[in-house]
């Protein structure tokens, strides 16, 4: 565990970047530092690997003061990733990744072998190994940055806005990749961002800092969304925190209706809707949803898929959250969301009202959880 204990950083010009910050950073989890520009995130992160020395307070790594070991030994045991990757432009991708193993005295072939292995792990084609950084896209460079940080298998990974310089689609890919890698490797990751959505998506714990280097709240993301500590945190979370909070509620418990689901080749007798369901969901012979149709418009044996209403984006109960289910219902012209299994076969439909009730129940339970956890 990394324990930041009453740490203050005052720069030479008198700026107080971090003010009596205390933070226990759990092992094998992603802890996100988030806050507006200039609130001391980078300073905090750099105090952990001693690129910045605290003016007051101590930082403990597994109970020992980080100043107890030689500074470069400490740094080599902590991977570091920054915005724009900060790659060595004069070294090949492979040699960039092999940097720390080489510093630790590994032989060149062994270091390069390890580097090639890591390229695979971060989703880089090993055909890029002999290239130079200028020959890579921003997203690829960022992956190299992550691979370089992981090369010597350090227990700790420090990441300073690593994905903020790439476009949203690439960023999402990199975030998913990080979560996947984290599932496999279980590093202790401290991740800095000013993007609250990124914080909520990645963080096991999220520390919200406010300008002047004060800790505003330190909590798991769901708790942050449920019970922001003050107006600053609430404001920082943005207007739709209620909706975003739904991401933390599973859709597994939703009661699905199966009667409105009819096959393309269903007999006329099946083409009647229950009293409370205005539309029928037509599925193909494999059970995959084709679209919605009003019972009166459907003729047995002559259903034209092109004339059906779009069924919106289906959700998978058990995997997707209530947010995805609600999104599916909101986007569907009928107001009903379609549930599918892992193969994409329709398993039922659910109305906005039912999702709404599930949300109310989950909110009530969630509030109790948070209060209980305090």
């Amino acid at each position, binding site marked *: 565990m990394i324990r930041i204990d009453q740490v203050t950083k005052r720069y030479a010009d008198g700026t107080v970047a971090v003010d009596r910050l205390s933070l226990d950073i759990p092992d094998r989890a992603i802890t996100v530092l988030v806050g507006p520009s200039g609130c001391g995130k980078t300073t905090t992160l750099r105090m952990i690997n001693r690129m910045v020395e605290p003016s007051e307070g101590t930082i403990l790594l597994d109970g020992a003061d980080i100043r107890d070991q030689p500074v470069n030994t400490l740094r080599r045991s902590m991977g570091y990733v*920054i915005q724009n990757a*900060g790659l060595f432009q004069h070294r090949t991708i492979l040699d960039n990744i092999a*940097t*720390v193993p080489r510093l630790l005295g590994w032989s060149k072939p062994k270091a390069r072998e390890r580097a090639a292995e890591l390229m695979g792990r971060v989703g880089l084609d090993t055909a890029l190994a002999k290239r*130079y950084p200028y020959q890579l896209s921003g997203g690829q460079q960022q992956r190299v940055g992550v691979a370089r940080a992981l090369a010597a298998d350090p227990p700790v990974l420090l990441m300073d806005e690593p994905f903020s310089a790439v476009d949203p689609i690439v960023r999402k890919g990199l975030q998913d990749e990080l979560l996947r890698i984290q599932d496999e490797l279980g590093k202790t990751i401290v991740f800095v961002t000013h993007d609250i959505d990124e914080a909520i998506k990645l963080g096991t714990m999220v520390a919200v800092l406010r300008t002047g280097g004060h800790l505003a709240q330190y909590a798991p993301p769901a708790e942050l969304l449920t019970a922001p500590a003050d107006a600053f945190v609430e404001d920082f979370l943005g207007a739709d925190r209620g909706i975003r909070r739904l991401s933390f509620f599973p859709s597994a418990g939703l009661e699905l209706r199966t009667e409105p689901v009819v096959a393309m080749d269903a007999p006329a007798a099946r083409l009647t809707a229950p009293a409370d369901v205005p539309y029928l969901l037509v599925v193909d012979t494999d059970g995959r949803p084709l679209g919605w149709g009003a019972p009166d418009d459907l003729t047995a044996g002559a259903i034209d898929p092109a004339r059906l209403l779009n069924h919106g984006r289906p959700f998978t109960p058990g995997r997707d959250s209530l947010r995805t289910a609600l999104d599916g219902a909101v986007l569907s012209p009928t107001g009903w969301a379609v549930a599918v299994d892992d193969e994409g076969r329709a398993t039922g439909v659910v109305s906005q009202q039912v999702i709404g009730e599930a949300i109310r129940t989950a909110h009530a339970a969630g509030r109790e959880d948070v209060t209980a956890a305090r």
Partner: protein
Amino acid sequence: MNLSRFFDIPSDLQHSYAGLIGLHLREALIPVLAGLLLALPLAQLCVRFKWVYPPLFGITTVLYAIPSLAFFVVLIDYTGLSETTVMIPLAVYSLVVLVPAIVDGVRSVPQETLAAATALGLGPVRRYLQVQLPIAVPAIIAGLRVATVSSVSLVSVGMLIGNQGALGNLLNDAQIYHRPELAVNSVVTTALLAVVLDAVLVGVRMLLTPWMPKESTAR
């Protein structure tokens, strides 16, 4: 002009044509090398301690402004009519060109590259030798090209101090023996040497910097 005697070097120069070229190369390149060896630590000093650069830059600019002849006159008292007297000013000129070139090159290394190097556990020495210096190579070689070409042409001035000007001495002999072809030889050979050395340096740069984007290779 008698072109058949183009390569017939007068015996008072005590060298064959090839010998003169060798001598010229030595007098031109040793100062550049000495300048480089001095410039590297000086530049590092300027990068580490920012306040060193402005005064050092001032001093070197003043040195550069001193005509080589004035330099020779002062030095003759100490080092006589020797090659050393020719080479010392040339080394100083090289130094003056190279220090700013290296400083700019090293400073052009992006902040985040340096931060990454520090964060990965490279100490100051490794950072300088493994990151800053290699990235400064294009700037250093650009400086070396200027220093080398001017050094090659300046060696000829050495003819004024006891025939220490290598190929430049041919200019003197051209006058004494009324053989203008020797003057042409001197000018053409010196120019060719400069062009060839420059091409060699460009080649070295390309060998050392496979990491540079190809479009911007022309500097």
